[in-house]
């Protein structure tokens, strides 16, 4: 159950029916898909017999159906999650039929007159019965204070979890409250500084933790799990599928690291206890590697055998390895990798970013940082002829231009080779990456131009 966040702070306001002691251990395990497991261990005072224990400082977005309380020598009668909030209007509404104290203030003298009144109705305005008179509260606009005797039982400043238990004997128990909550999440953020001189990168990795759950977790032992456990969605099925993206993982790795695991998920425990404040973004370092060899290249993809209106920039690609040898030497949790490069004055400048998925150690990553200003490709259908009913021939031309003062190699890739497609003739040898794609490594001289032509035969 998700509740709208009415306000953003954790409450220490205790309506204590059973007192919590300060000896409390909080551990928070955060998964990648907006899910966290909170385990709250503390000593509780339990009386003999039936009683209600309230937990106000739980996540404001708690999924109440996942709550479990365990403590020795108690049995649980029921669990309730109250989300009727204490507001002035609710307070008045719950007072209908009951006595309140009204204090009239004389505007001239400031003198106070106290009277007892019964609330009759709160529809649009408050109707009071004072003695035998009926009166509308502050109908004349003069100041009148209304004083209530108590707060109704189930009105709360914050959504509150309460558990009714039966204690077999009075005393202190060591209890564990655990529940799942959305609103806590983490991802990795990487910073890669590319050195153009020697083609090496320095990479720093940070885990970034965000808390929008509406509650602060004080002094919590925090464990991050690089994985997205399956969740059964209570609501409508989410049928949205994002469009396919350029695959960043070129070669999946086969090396094992020495990080802790949970099942097949890698674990990133934070070394120290930390306070995860509400609406806070927190970052902790987990990777710092220097001088990893990286390659810089260009890539262009023509989605189908079609003509582009204008030359299109090639993508600027950086690729490197995550292997223990000449690589980052770690598995990388999913996140965003930002590339920086030093300008002529030596200041690092941002040159683009790319998202990566969970990447095993020993993989080769190839990340696009953006369009190359000076390297462009113009794909043109020169001719398309029908050879027979299901047989077509397409003549393609790819003009690759380079306005850089150095020679570059551009990977020109033709995607969308549907059906039974074959390259009949070509001006240079292509690599057939798959049934659907062919690729040429095109050498383009400095401030120059190169052209590749190819004839495709496609049968349906």
């Amino acid at each position, binding site marked *: 159950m998700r509740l709208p966040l009415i*306000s*953003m*702070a954790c409450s220490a*306001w205790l309506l204590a029916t059973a007192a919590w002691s*300060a*000896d409390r251990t909080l551990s928070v395990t955060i998964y990648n898909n907006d899910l966290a497991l909170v385990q709250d261990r503390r000593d509780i005072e339990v009386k003999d017999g039936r009683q209600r224990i309230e937990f106000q400082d739980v996540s404001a977005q708690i999924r109440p159906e996942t709550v479990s309380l365990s403590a020795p020598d108690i049995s649980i009668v029921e669990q309730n999650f109250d989300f009727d909030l*204490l*507001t*002035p209007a609710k*307070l*008045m509404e719950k007072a209908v039929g009951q006595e309140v104290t009204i204090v009239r203030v004389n*505007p001239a003298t400031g003198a106070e007159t106290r009277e007892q009144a019964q609330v009759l109705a*709160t529809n*649009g*305005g408050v109707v009071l019965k004072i003695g035998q008179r009926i009166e509308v*509260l502050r*109908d004349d*606009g003069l*100041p009148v204070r*209304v*004083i209530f005797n*108590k707060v109704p039982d189930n*009105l709360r400043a*914050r959504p509150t979890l309460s558990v009714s238990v039966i204690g077999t004997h009075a005393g202190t128990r060591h209890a564990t409250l655990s529940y799942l909550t959305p609103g806590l999440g983490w*991802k990795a*953020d990487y*910073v890669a500084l590319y050195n153009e001189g020697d083609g090496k990168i320095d990479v720093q990795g940070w885990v*970034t933790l965000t808390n929008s759950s509406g509650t*602060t977790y004080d*002094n919590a032992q925090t464990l991050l799990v690089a994985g997205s456990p399956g969740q059964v969605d209570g609501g409508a099925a989410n049928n949205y599928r994002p469009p396919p993206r350029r695959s960043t993982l070129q070669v999946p790795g086969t090396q094992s690291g020495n990080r802790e695991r949970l099942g097949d998920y890698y674990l990133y425990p*934070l070394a120290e206890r930390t*306070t995860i404040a509400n*609406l806070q*973004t927190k*970052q902790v370092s987990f990777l710092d590697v220097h001088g990893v060899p990286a390659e810089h290249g260009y890539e262009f993809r023509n989605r*189908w*055998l079609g003509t582009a*209106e*204008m*030359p299109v*920039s090639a993508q600027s690609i950086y690729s490197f390895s995550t292997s223990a040898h000449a690589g980052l030497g770690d598995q990388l949790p999913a996140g965003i990798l930002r590339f920086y490069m030093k300008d002529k004055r030596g200041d*690092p*400048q*941002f040159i*683009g*970013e*790319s*998202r990566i998925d969970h990447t095993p150690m020993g993989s080769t990553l190839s990340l696009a*940082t*953006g*369009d*190359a*200003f*000076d390297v462009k490709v113009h794909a*043109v*259908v020169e001719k398309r*002829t*029908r050879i027979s009913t299901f047989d077509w021939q397409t003549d393609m031309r790819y003009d690759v231009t380079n*306005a*850089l003062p150095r020679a570059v190699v551009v990977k020109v890739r033709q995607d969308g080779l549907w059906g039974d497609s074959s390259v009949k003739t070509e001006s240079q040898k292509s690599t057939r990456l798959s049934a659907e794609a062919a690729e040429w490594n095109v050498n383009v001289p400095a401030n120059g131009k190169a052209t590749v032509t190819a004839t495709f035969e496609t049968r349906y």
Partner: protein
Amino acid sequence: MRAAALIAGFGFAAATGIAAAATQEVLAEPPSNLIVTVYRAPYRDSGSIDLDELNGFALVTETRIVRLPTGVSRVRFEGVADGIEPSSALITGLPGKVVEKNRDARLLSPSALVASAVGKRVELLRTDRKTGTSQRVPGTILSDAGGGVVFKTAAGIEALRCSGMPETFGFEPAANLSARPTLSVEVRTPSAVTRQVTLSYLARGFDWAADYTATLSQDGKHVDLGAWVTLANSNGVGFPGAHVQVVAGKLNRENDEVEPIDVGGPILAQCWPLGSTSDQPMFLREESRSRMFMKSVAAPAPAAMGVLQEIVVTGANKVQQEQLGDLKLYRVPERTTLASRQSKQVRLMDQSGIPVTTIYGLDLDDDADSTGPAHRWVRTKNTVANHLGLPLPSGSVAVFGPYNGEQLLQHESELRDVAVDEEVEIDLGESPDVQVSGEVEETHIDSAHAKVLPLVPGVSLRSVKVDNVQRVEVSNARAAGIDFELRLRIPEGARVVRTDHPLGTKNGRPIFRFKVPANQTVAVRFQTQGIGDGILRTP
């Protein structure tokens, strides 16, 4: 909340055996040596910036002095840009071990004060309107849910500002709320030290574009091209005395949500229904109240406020260009102040006497309905020989033409990123004097008619169906002859097989290039051969 944190803090100290002197708050000195690099909106290919919606971003680098005591301290960097993407923040130069870095999104605001005071003791302040005497009553805030405030005093439970008397709270100082966006770092240092620390981060709410002015010469054969770099900052934070540069080129940006900043709001103090016997019907009241509520809640974040206060134009110094990987970096030569909500212009280039050819033309669609006035373009190649040969970052172009010794605006168009040696085309808008009309003359060809149009060289027609004969007429009401380009947008795979004019190709599309003499009309006839059943129609 603060009380709870303290208890937890003591628990922590006891558990780990560290002396009770917990985290010390250290405020970093204000930034010096600011470097701001502005990147344009990643999905805008051409055109100028929109001051109301700056979708670009900037890399901000600043240097600050930090005085660290021994032990664990929380270093607070106040006054970072409100559009900061906290996950991109990098801090270098800190001694010892960085434990963690944090960005707290909650700013000091009336509602945040109440929210952080829930459950704590506050002082209620009531003032008599007549006498002006104030009464201070100790109490506890019970709830601030739903925009109303309920508190408890010795007298009982009451709601704030429902009595009709002036009421407010006196708060204790809230240590965990900052007035300005703040980034903090927890660091452990073995001994007290003073360091210079570099902080860099990406922030939203910036943008830039190149704004060109193209001035045509009297004879229309040359153009003077000047350009400004227009950059703007919609953040509530200014950058005084900064090294400013802009980066041209399209960067890959992942569409990541930025954690919002909670700018807070007023204390609403909503009451119980306060209708009186002379009130308008309730549903009207409810509506107006909810509208009021919406209005006060939806106070815009500082970064979203579109009103830019100041526009500064400087022209003496041009930006200096350098290569940054596959991007182009333009450096503003002197330190400058990029103030909060300000747009600024710096000269990008001034190139004069660029030879251009003037072309009239039209893109003709398959359905032949796309006729009407032709467009006029000036065209040149971006080379040194043409007095250019510079990368041209994308932006807008205002074209001016001479009239009576003055330069008047003729058209505004857009320019994409143009690399050196590429063709540059500037649209001069529609030309009502040059009209293009087209129609399909025939849809079935008998053999007698088919011979009217000569075959396009290289085409051999077997018994293949020929779609139709199209006739396009170009009329010229100008007193001078024009060069005309008719670009055909026929489906890929279709081709022109017969025509009475020479056929060329440009960018993979068939094109007719011909002259239209002064005050004359030229007709072009052509026949296309279709793509049959249309399997290869591309999306």
